[in-house]
């Protein structure tokens, strides 16, 4: 497992780095509107109506943005949680934890691809 984790390290670091860079850039607007403003009723009525939301999301740009917005933060999260575990003395469990976290991120990324394809 340790060998495999070292082999995929360049890919994990690429996705982790993009999770910080692109994930942060995209999540800001998403969280402001979908997470905070819309639930508090601060968004214009009809802005997030199903037809409009579906039209925005099913455009190819919308699909790409949503895929990046879901998948990249998962890799950022997985790698940082692994790093957090190592800092708190988790070297002995690192291989197992890393395998679990990266599997969760990979599964989430696959589901994100399915989610944007089926829109």
């Amino acid at each position, binding site marked *: 497992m*340790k*060998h495999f984790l*070292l082999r995929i390290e360049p890919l994990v670091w690429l996705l982790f780095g993009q*999770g*910080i*860079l692109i*994930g*942060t*850039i*995209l*999540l*800001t*607007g*998403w*969280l*402001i*509107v*979908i*997470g*905070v*403003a*819309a*639930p*508090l009723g601060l*968004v*214009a009525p*009809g*802005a*997030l109506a*199903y037809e*409009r*939301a*579906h039209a*925005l*999301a099913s455009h190819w740009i919308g699909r790409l*943005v*949503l895929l990046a*917005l*879901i*998948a990249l*933060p*998962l890799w*950022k*999260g*997985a*790698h*940082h*949680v692994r*790093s*957090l575990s190592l*800092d*708190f003395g988790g070297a002995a469990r690192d291989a197992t934890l890393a395998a679990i976290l990266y599997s*969760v*991120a990979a599964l*989430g990324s696959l*589901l994100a691809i399915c*989610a*944007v394809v*089926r*829109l």
Partner: protein
Amino acid sequence: MAGAAHPDAMQPSRPGRTRTARPQRPPQFPFRGRYAAYTLFDITGVLYLLVGFVALRVVWALGNGAAAWHEVQRELTHPSYVAFHVIALISVVFVGVRFFRLFPKAQPPRIGPVKPPPQPVILGFLYAVWIGVAGLMTAILAGGIS
């Protein structure tokens, strides 16, 4: 072509005679001094993981039709979801500020024959993209741009 080396290939066959001190955590770890921001930066990973899965759920519901979309929007109005998203938004801003401040310093002196732009230019560019994209997404999602 030779295969990849085993990760422990360079380890000595038996422990060396030199005694080494046990690794010790710095006294300020994890939440004092400069370690506070470092540890918080790592902890944001938990929030990014959760935000990613909540976003997945929202997009999945959108694909399930109007009823599922309205249901997930109703769920997001629960105070615990709103509080979570406010904390996540603060975390995202914290990560952005910390990472963008680091990014220009991490550039190599040269990229091939080209020198990277001065650090303030890179930093300004990153902030401009961040604010621009966030503003555009906010305007589109909130209905300001149709």
